């Protein structure tokens, strides 16, 4: 069993340099669209498969970091400064000397595999000629592709050191992807000798069919019908996977995704070393996603690397296994330092906005639905911007779970404003309660007046006339405030719909919004 413990990318796609350690078991790359999650899985897939044709199909021009090319031209097109693409996958000690050596960017002794694309020295004259031309003509065509272990042994798709599978659920209807998936799993469950026997039996079955059954049809014909038996028609091309006698291709997309992932995770005779899952939540319903998460959790000690932007996957599989990618930068943040209890909290908490939280540079946390409904309005009125235009996300933490979020924020460069209630004692519930959470990245904002103990009370206090006019008619038993306290979300919604521009905003909320949008 081989385990990847670190990945380094150099000038690969959007990463000019990227370096992250990996966990032994489970790794989830999370991040927004364009943050490079898929590129990382692609890089791992390329280097593990040792497939030149994979690189050639994608094209060096699509793999080489665009900024590296611009920098190269800006720096005056010097031959020796031509950028290289390097992908390095560091492995735990596998006992195989062919993998072990110092030939890596870190210069450390380790097992590992690498891809290097660099100008081919054979063509250095041609490259020089291209560079001497006017304008920005980059000599992609003269790049060599070499797969080497850290011991400097070359490898390829035929003699590779690693057995892995990449499951890309966004490619579910791609026939080629399905074929190569089935083939991979077939190889995983039958060794070469066994496969030869099966192949042979299949061929003789076809011959029987031809001899005993087709012969009727062929009688008296000038030419004979026969079954194909060649590289395009054999056991490996004809084999498929079925569930309840239905071929996998004919199941719904969601079920297909599920079966494929589940089968790959399954223990097979010739164990896959690593499973790469690209957006496994694709096409899956809530329920299926939950089942899939269970399967991933149960998949023994197999190393699984996932790219996802599903809240559910990240939170339920454990935030400590997450590696967060930022779409603006090219750095990654591992959430494995979060304390165990907070990680477990997010695992158990209702499917919430934890990913949105970790991926936003600025967050306003509010207690419940009522605050959430009105906060966007307040923000717009105070700043003249929609929150997302100022990179601010408003998240309803669902009760007093702020500290869990703040535990998370400790490891991230996030500005967080918490808007909360003083519950009747600012001293006790705010000052004292949050004394361990002092930071200039956070602001805990609540009404300083102890009598205004909760959001609705503060709001009513500031907007007595509006509220009385809106909610007063028809009240017999309850006061207006009591009614508001018992129908928080409903009241907030009516205020938003009917009195958006007249509402006075409590000062502690004003402060928080001013601070977060600053």
């Amino acid at each position, binding site marked *: 069993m081989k385990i990847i413990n670190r990945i380094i990318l150099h000038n690969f796609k959007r990463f000019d340099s990227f370096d992250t350690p990996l966990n032994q078991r489970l790794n989830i790359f999370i991040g927004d669209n364009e943050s490079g999650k898929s590129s990382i899985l692609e890089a791992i897939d390329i280097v593990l498969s040792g497939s030149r044709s994979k690189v050639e199909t994608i094209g060096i021009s699509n793999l080489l970091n665009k900024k590296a090319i611009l920098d190269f031209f800006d720096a005056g097109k010097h031959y020796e400064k031509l950028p290289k693409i390097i992908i390095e996958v560091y492995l735990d000690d596998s006992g195989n*000397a062919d993998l072990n050596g110092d030939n890596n960017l870190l210069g450390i002794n380790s097992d590992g595999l690498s891809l290097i694309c660099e100008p081919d020295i054979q063509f250095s004259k041609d490259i020089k000629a291209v560079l001497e031309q006017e304008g920005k003509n980059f000599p992609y065509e003269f790049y060599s592709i070499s797969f080497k272990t850290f011991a400097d042994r070359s490898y390829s798709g035929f003699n590779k050191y690693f057995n892995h599978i990449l499951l890309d659920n966004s490619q579910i209807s791609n026939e080629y992807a399905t074929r190569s998936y089935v083939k991979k799993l077939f190889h995983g469950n039958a060794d070469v000798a066994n496969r030869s026997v099966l192949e042979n039996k299949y061929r003789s079955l076809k011959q029987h069919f031809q001899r005993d059954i087709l012969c009727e049809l062929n009688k008296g014909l000038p030419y004979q019908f026969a079954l194909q038996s060649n590289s395009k028609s054999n056991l490996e091309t004809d084999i498929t996977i079925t569930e309840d006698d239905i071929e996998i291709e004919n199941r719904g997309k969601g079920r297909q995704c599920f079966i494929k992932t589940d089968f790959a995770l399954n223990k097979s005779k010739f164990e896959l070393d690593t499973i790469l899952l690209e957006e496994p939540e694709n096409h899956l319903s809530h329920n299926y996603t939950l089942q899939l998460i269970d399967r991933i959790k149960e998949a023994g000690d197999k190393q699984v690397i996932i790219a996802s932007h599903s809240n559910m996957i990240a939170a339920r599989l454990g935030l400590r296994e997450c590696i967060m990618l930022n779409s603006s930068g090219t750095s990654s943040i591992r959430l494995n330092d979060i304390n165990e209890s907070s990680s477990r909290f997010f695992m158990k908490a209702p499917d919430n906005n934890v990913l949105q939280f970790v991926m936003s540079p600025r967050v306003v946390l509010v207690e419940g639905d009522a605050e959430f409904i009105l906060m966007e309005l307040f923000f717009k009125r105070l700043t003249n911007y929609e929150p997302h235009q100022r990179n601010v996300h408003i998240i309803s933490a669902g009760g007093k779970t702020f500290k869990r979020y703040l535990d998370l924020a400790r490891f991230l460069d996030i500005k967080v404003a918490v808007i909360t209630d003083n519950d009747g004692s600012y001293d006790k519930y705010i000052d004292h309660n949050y004394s361990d959470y002092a930071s200039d990245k956070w602001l805990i904002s609540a009404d300083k007046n102890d009598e205004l103990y909760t959001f609705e009370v503060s709001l009513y206090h500031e907007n007595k006339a509006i509220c009385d006019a809106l909610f007063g008619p028809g009240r017999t038993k309850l006061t207006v405030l009591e009614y508001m306290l018992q129908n928080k979300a409903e009241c907030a919604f009516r205020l938003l719909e009917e009195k958006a521009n007249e509402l006075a905003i409590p000062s502690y909320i004003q402060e928080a919004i001013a601070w977060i949008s600053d």
Partner: protein
Amino acid sequence: MDKRLILAVAGSGKTTHILNQLDEENRHLIVTYTRENIRNLKSGIERKFNFFPGNIKLYSFFEFLYSFCYKPYRARFDKPNGICWDNPDPRRRIPEKNRAHYFTGDGRIFSNRLSKYMFRIGLEEAIISRVEKYFDIFHIDEVQDFGGYDFDFLMHFSALNIRLNWVGDFFQHTYDTSRDANKNKSLHSSLDGYLNRFSEVGITIDQDSLFKSRRCPKAVTDFITEHLGIAIETHKDTIAYVQFVDDPAQIEDIALDNSIIKLFYRNHNEYNCYSSNWGKLKGADHLQDICVVLNKKSLELYKKGKLRESAPLTKNKLYVACSRANGNLYLVPENLLLKFKKP
């Protein structure tokens, strides 16, 4: 930890000895020099196990040095482009600190300076731990061929904390893995001095395990002991003879008999018959009767009974030649074969 150099005589079964040590449990490293030996060992291993077990790694000497020892540490840094088998021009004196002392212009490393280079950049310790990490037993066949800086490297391996099973025949030393100026030049001038180098570094010298030939009949081993002064005994009890032939009719019979190989001092290609050179067939075990062709100088010495006074390398090659015999050994003067010389 058993560290042992077994001194073997020709045909005593060095290859078989190594094969006998192999199993599927320990991780074996086997290094040998000649291509012939690689082939012998490979087929021996496949015969023994019916496949080639993954726990056994068989390397030719330079493949071991270059791919196993050197490249894992320095390939990305030095960007070597293979090995250059020609020696550097001795008239061009390039300081030892320059890359050009070790590499050709196109990036190939000189085979005779690879070991020296690894010493220079201080890879010894790393290589020791690498061998220890991946192997339990280190076999070397044809130890006597290590020369120049390679011998220093070999001595360094005595520090390995794994079992060493090194086998060689001092008198079959007919060439060096590499030579460089005066480095270890007098290494092979005396057996005692040579063995001393090994015992100094804590390697046990074993002269008893493989002192009898399984190949050569008694007549041949007696001839070698008497004429070449190389002690060799035999397990074999088949009857054979050593014959000096100068009858032209018999010489013609021998020359035309393609079951008898004619072994020349050198340039066997100049003759129209089934032939080879003295030292070339080291490791070969398939020859029955053989014919050793004596050149002018050795003929003189033979007649005086002083073959043992031949130049050391010549004597060793002659030893390799004579000890190929599984059967009879014919000695024929080269000048009586002129008839078969190509025009």
